[in-house]
């Protein structure tokens, strides 16, 4: 029973951790490229802002999955 609880917690943690790493990696790439773009074309700031925010979908959906895991299996 205790192992099962631990595995559920681990699964929920991984559901957030892995997308968070992927989001961080993507945002780092997009952010640095975006800054380079802005030095030459400042009018593109809205596009850059949106592009930087796009990978956040991954970690947000990861959070949703984590909540679902805990809700469905954790008895929370």
């Amino acid at each position, binding site marked *: 029973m205790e192992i099962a609880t631990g595995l559920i917690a681990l699964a929920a943690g991984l559901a957030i951790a892995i997308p968070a790493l992927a989001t961080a990696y993507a945002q780092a790439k997009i952010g640095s490229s975006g800054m380079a773009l802005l030095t030459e074309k400042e009018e593109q700031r809205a596009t850059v802002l949106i592009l930087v*925010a796009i990978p956040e979908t991954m970690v*947000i959906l990861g*959070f949703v999955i984590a909540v*679902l895991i805990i809700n469905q299996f954790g008895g929370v």
Partner: protein
Amino acid sequence: MITDMVQLNIVGPRDSYDKLLDVAWQLDCLHLIDIDDIDLTSISIPSHIESSFQYSLERLEEFDTFFNLYKSHLSTPVELPKQLLDEAASLQLEHLGEFISSWKKEKADLDEKIEIHRQNEGILRYFQDIVPDIADGSLLHTRGIIIRDPNPRLYDALRTELERCTEGLYQLNLYTISSDLVLGALLYPHQFTDQIRVLLEGIQISELSFPSSIAAGTITEKIQTLMREIDDLDTDKSDLFLRLQLAYQQYLQLNHYHRTIKITVEKYEGLRKFRQSRNFTFIGAYAAKEKIETIKQAFAGLGPGVFVYEEAPDRRAPTQLSNTKGVREFQIFTDLLPPLAPGSIDPTIMITIFFPLFYGFIVGDIAYGLIIAGIGYWVYHSQEDDSALHQLGWVYFLSGLSSVLFGFAFGEFLGDLAPSLGIHPLLFHRGHDLMTLLLISIGIGIVHVLLGIALGAYNSWIIGQQHGFYGHLGMLITLLSVIVLLVSVLGLISIPPIIPGLSLIPGIYFLIRGEGFIGVIEIISTIANMLSYARLMALGAASVILADLANEMYTIAGGGILGIIVAILIHVLNIIIAMFSPTIHAMRLHLVEFFSKFVEFGGATFTPFGPTALQN
């Protein structure tokens, strides 16, 4: 909404082009277009406008950069001369250029002298405390030394050599001025002077030396002389800035001239879009429908030979947004988009309705909402109209109010402090029922995206785009069928699954007819768009959990003043996050998920020919 445009053709006698230019410029409401006609020739800009003014513009821009550096030292007169400067302006331009070059050199020299004097003064003050006199010529057994790039090995080597040279009869005091500068006071018997000098030269340690003006005298006298000289140099510097102030007055006059030149050049640039035949001058332009009468009257004033006639605007017509106060402030978001295509729906009204709702749904706290609305209200009233901050102030004011309403719905006041104030959730507590929050978020996504698709279908119908209409209609039917089918299979409604299953057929048929097979693939991405609204739940949950944590930290910190400070700090952090993160995500949901369903881009921004465009 998008302003209704008309296309205008203005025709006048060939030699009246300068009068037409004047009227068009003064009207300040015509968007000039190129007329593509091989029988018409373009008009070139007068050479004195194009070339001779160019030099003046470039020089004045250089001066502009220079005077901006010293803006804090200079005062601006209240009134600038109204009249345009004459030919003498070009002469003044040269004089000012020469003055700036010599002024910069003079200032650099003065700054350097002052810096050296201050450095010497500092050094002398260090020695004043330990050596009564080091340089009046009679006490040769005392030397001041300067060690640059010091290190412990150098000190050891110096002390070893001094021990050897003076047979141990020396005293060395070192004073660290900075990481790369150490001063030393060295005392030794008179007979070792030569050996010490050779030693210091050998290990590249320099002796302290001063300008000739303070070579003689005691340290105290040297310091007094230095301070007098520093005072004199400061006076010289004040004089220098007085002369700069005079030059600045001259520059401001020239800058006024600069602006006049820019207006003239900009105005004559308009001629590039004028066209001429053997007998006539032609102008093509777009203008707002409501301005037609004003435009006709203005050109009629030029005489009977000038005609203005209108045509229906084509797909090249520029777009101009015109919204009422309250909605116009939300154009800060639509202005971020590429120009809208003619005939597109203006999405500003949509973002005015939904942005505050999404924002409020995420923040959902009475106290946070009141603070954000207060900040927004203050910014809105303290900034100039039409400035970006003024617009943002209004956006945050409405969003803050929306947060207050959702705060009552979720029963949150600084997180979970609401029950102690007698406030209970009107709907449910977000932190305790995340699944409900998730379902509502996705439900909002479904409604929002379907609304976008319905608007897209309506817009395609209005502008007569048959494929677009069928595509949007097909997507709408398909998605509705999929959703009803899903709900039916889950047993949440009593409709037999066969009914939504059958309605998928016309949906997919229209979709393929409108957008081809690529439209079927679009179904997946549109469903992903709907699921993307789960971020409303995720951000909202993060906000409420952080607020609860702040209150919990009060207890963990042991209550009292420390607990209050810790709790306030975390709440402030949460409010700062609430000012940024929900804004970006609510904006993204509009710009990516919602607008892509019905807004058409690809037009041109309406740019009136006249002084307004220059101001912008």
